[in-house]
């Protein structure tokens, strides 16, 4: 289903539904009895950003689709410039130097860096002759991603830096060897196992598994050496995890991870947010307490409840029913974008749309997972829902660009392949 202009109506409807959910949730999360209408306060501000986004969207649709690919590196460059700029003239807000003040509004360059980096990544990957086995290409990709990650880390915003890991999903889709993804997931598993049981038990378990494995395959002599090296590697990794965790991570970061893994209970300290968040969502029951009736939200018990913890308001006031609705909207939207990516005829477009879907997925996974206690507290917003102009505008531009690229897919007569 699509309009005459080629815009995918399903995506637009899902976008509108999620944005509407976001604005009403922000309204409720910041509601003061008798004080403000939907058009005032923070929900009003969010509406204003929606308006600005629509204007920007119209401009995007008036542009030639080829403009984006052509100007990829300029867009990337501009975004990186902003990231550097914020370090120079940025305002310190709650410990992070992530904001540039422009009169009444503050913008957060990290929210646009994902957009810019996507252009660069799509550009490199769609270059004719790009190969995963060429070191030069790998270096290019690495540099393009590490620059924004590094700059954002310097700002002190670890959550936004982590978002760039979304690109690994893109690389996987685009043919990077699955070893990377598998080792990544394995590393996370070892990480969790080590923190829960300690590296000593981990080593014991690995050696045990190896011995059992060896007992069945001792005739195959050539397997012995690789197996032993894998065992040694994992044990070494586990030991270094323990070391890194203890010595590199800051105490609050350690605690957040420990709280998520249920290793410590700290409902007044590191676990406060998550505990309050779970209480708010959990108290919503099947059908919720009703719009504007979330006592826990109204009591401002959850820090960041209109930004990173916006899902609490949905969970408390809408209950399981509305929460599931919201999750389904996101899942459908992400899947729809993946579908748009897969039907693109140009590699650049495919990678661009696919990156957007992956970044949305990463945000969704980490943000919702955090509010319901399945992920450590990593401060990244729920796209289109959390309060915050930069995030909202950034994602709108991102989505509109993707939709524009999709809308013009029929112009791309040559189907690229790889």
């Amino acid at each position, binding site marked *: 289903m699509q309009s005459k202009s080629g815009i995918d109506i399903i995506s637009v409807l899902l976008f509108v539904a999620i944005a509407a959910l976001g604005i009403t949730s922000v309204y409720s999360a910041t509601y003061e009895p008798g004080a403000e209408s939907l058009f005032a306060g923070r929900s009003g501000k969010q509406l204003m950003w929606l308006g600005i986004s629509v204007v920007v969207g119209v401009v995007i649709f008036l542009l030639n689709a080829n403009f984006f690919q052509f100007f990829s590196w300029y867009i990337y460059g501009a975004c990186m410039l902003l990231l550097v700029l914020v370090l120079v003239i940025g305002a310190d807000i709650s410990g992070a130097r992530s904001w540039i003040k422009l009169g009444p509004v503050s913008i957060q360059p990290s929210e646009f860096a994902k957009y810019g980096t996507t252009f660069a990544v799509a550009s490199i990957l769609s270059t004719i002759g790009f190969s995963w086995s060429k070191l030069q290409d790998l270096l290019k990709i690495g540099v393009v991603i590490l620059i924004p990650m590094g700059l954002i880390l310097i700002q002190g915003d670890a959550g936004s830096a982590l978002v760039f890991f979304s690109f690994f999903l893109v690389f996987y889709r685009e043919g990077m060897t699955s070893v990377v993804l598998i080792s990544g997931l394995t590393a996370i598993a070892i990480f969790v196992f080590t923190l829960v049981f300690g590296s000593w038990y981990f080593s014991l378990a690995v050696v045990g598994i190896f011995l059992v494995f060896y007992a069945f395959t001792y005739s195959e002599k050539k397997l012995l050496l690789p197996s032993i090296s894998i065992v040694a590697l994992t044990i070494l990794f586990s030991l270094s995890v323990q070391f890194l965790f203890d010595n590199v991570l800051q105490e609050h970061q350690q605690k957040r991870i420990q709280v998520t893994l249920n290793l410590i209970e700290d409902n007044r300290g590191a676990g406060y947010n998550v505990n309050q968040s779970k209480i708010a969502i959990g108290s919503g029951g099947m059908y919720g307490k009703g719009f504007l009736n979330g006592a826990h939200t109204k009591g401002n018990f959850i820090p960041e409840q209109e930004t990173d913890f916006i899902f609490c308001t949905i*969970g408390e006031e809408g209950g399981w029913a509305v929460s599931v609705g919201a999750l389904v909207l996101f899942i459908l939207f992400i899947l729809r974008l993946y579908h748009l990516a897969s039907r693109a005829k140009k590699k650049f477009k495919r990678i661009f749309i696919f990156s957007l879907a992956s970044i949305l997925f990463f945000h969704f996974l980490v943000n919702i997972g955090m509010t319901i206690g399945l992920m450590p507290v990593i401060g990244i917003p729920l796209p289109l829902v959390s309060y915050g102009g930069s995030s909202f505008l950034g994602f709108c531009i991102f989505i509109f660009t993707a939709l524009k690229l999709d809308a013009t897919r029929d112009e791309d007569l040559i189907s690229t392949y790889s």
Partner: protein
Amino acid sequence: MRDNRSLYIYFGVVLVGVIFILRLFQIQVLDDKYANAADRISLRKQTVYPQRGLIFDRHENLLVYNDPLYDLMLSVPIRISNIDTASFCKLLEIDRAEFDKRLNAAKRNSFRGKAIFKKNISNLVYARLQERLYEFKGFFFEIRQDRNYKYNSAAHLLGYLGEVSRKQLDRQVEEYYEQGDFNGKKGVERFYEKELRGVKGEQYFYVDKHGLDRGSYKDKKLDKEVVDGKNLYLSIDIELQKYGEKLLANKLGSVVAIEPSTGEILALISSPFYNPVKFNIQNRGSYYNAAINDPTKPIFNRAVSAPYPPGSTFKPVMALVGLQDGAITKNTYFGCRGYYKLGRRTIACHYHSYNTSLQKSIASSCNTYYCNIFKNMMQSGKYENTEEAYNSWRRYMRSFGIGGELGIDVSVESRGWLRDAAYYDRMYGEDKWSYARIISLSFGQGELGLTPVQMANVAATIANRGHYYIPHVVRRIENQDSIPTKYVVKNHTLVDPKHFDAVIQGMQQVTRTGTASAIAIKGIDIAGKTGTVQNPHGKNHSAYIAFAPADNPKIAIAVVVEEAGYGATWAAPIAHLVIEKYLSPDTLEVSSRASLEKKIIKSNLIPYKYRTQRDMSLYAE
């Protein structure tokens, strides 16, 4: 291969969605611990304390009113951050160490969304702190009512409030009180607790993390309206009460005055007394030890709780019983040589002329006469044996309200002493005791004890010629048609009214020619009876009962002054002064009795052994 990878990714996205949905189902629908936690954190029950009923005297003078008391509370969960602790401590007049101590205590003892930080904060500190309370998020005030008093008077009878005890909390049937609530501990505060207290209101509402109100809960369906307590109008005449207290100052003893026609108590005084405000919630902590350690027992309500042998004040009752039981007639004479011979023992009387009539026996307080009555009664052919005769005597006593709680509305009442026959059986062996063993009962000594209010009730009963109303201090309860019914029914004695006039004539002689004639009041016909009560521990107690005017009694009175000597010397003048003050207050100032009044007020009759151990701060304004 790439399509496979796309499928893996789709699958991964859907899997995450399903895990999230299941997780949400778990915490939202299956597990109610989160919902409970939410209510615990953000739902607050605010108790609205009612105004306790005011207390007035019989002329509607305000006696007791409410004084707000401020408890500084903390919202739970306690999250105190960014507050200026130094200036907070300064406002509250505590130091940093105490702040930390109280904060820790509050964290340990939170209850239903709140915890006590500091109780009973003064008005002044409250006003100072309230103004800046917005700076100290998480703190709020709860207001309760303490008592204050218009008069430094009537402390015992009014009683005081205190925190509900653990035992009361555990035993309550209707689950009204909560830990920390106040209730009446003594006096009318205790007796009329239910009427005075009202009904606490409850408001349920949501609070934010600063403890600020964020709207009502379930449309206020669970809220309870507060109902203020009822005002209480007492029968006490506060001017009379104060006058009696003035006379009893620096003496140990009691004055109880009753209106015979109604049983209303006009004054109920126990001395030493204390300033009631020193025993309210705010102050009691500072004075309690002083009160407990004072050997004169200033918080003990002698008027209702201390039984004394009535001594000779008992003789009118004994005479009435003798007349009713046939032991004597009103014309019976007994001869008295100044003693009564009982086998080898003699019971002393004092000098008076030999031939003693009933009236004279009262007027001159002849012990011999009453020993004879008692002997006649105990040995009367009406009864099979002494035990039966004693039981009959005892029934007469009970009909006068002696030997049992009267049921007055001032706690805590003593029954007095009145033994049953079984007691003497145990004491002397069954059938091994005769009238001779217990003859001192006939003149009010021995195993007989009356509280001052029981003595006053006896006076009122004689004044009424044979009946009494249970003495009480309630006159009217706001919004209530009547006082408790037991206070409006007549209690008849077992003595026929026709016998009373002969005895009353004797009591009139007491103030005309008898033991109290020296202090008679011109123009007021008082019927009285002096008593000098033997006290094994020290000087005799001085006692007196009376009522006036004799033919139309408006006031009946009993006075006991401990370790003071003759009844005629102290108790009787005090009683007469009180009677005069009540019946014709205007004559008192100009009468020749002003000097008597002055002498009594000035006299310190507190035994020397106690004087140095008294803590006068309890009595001060």
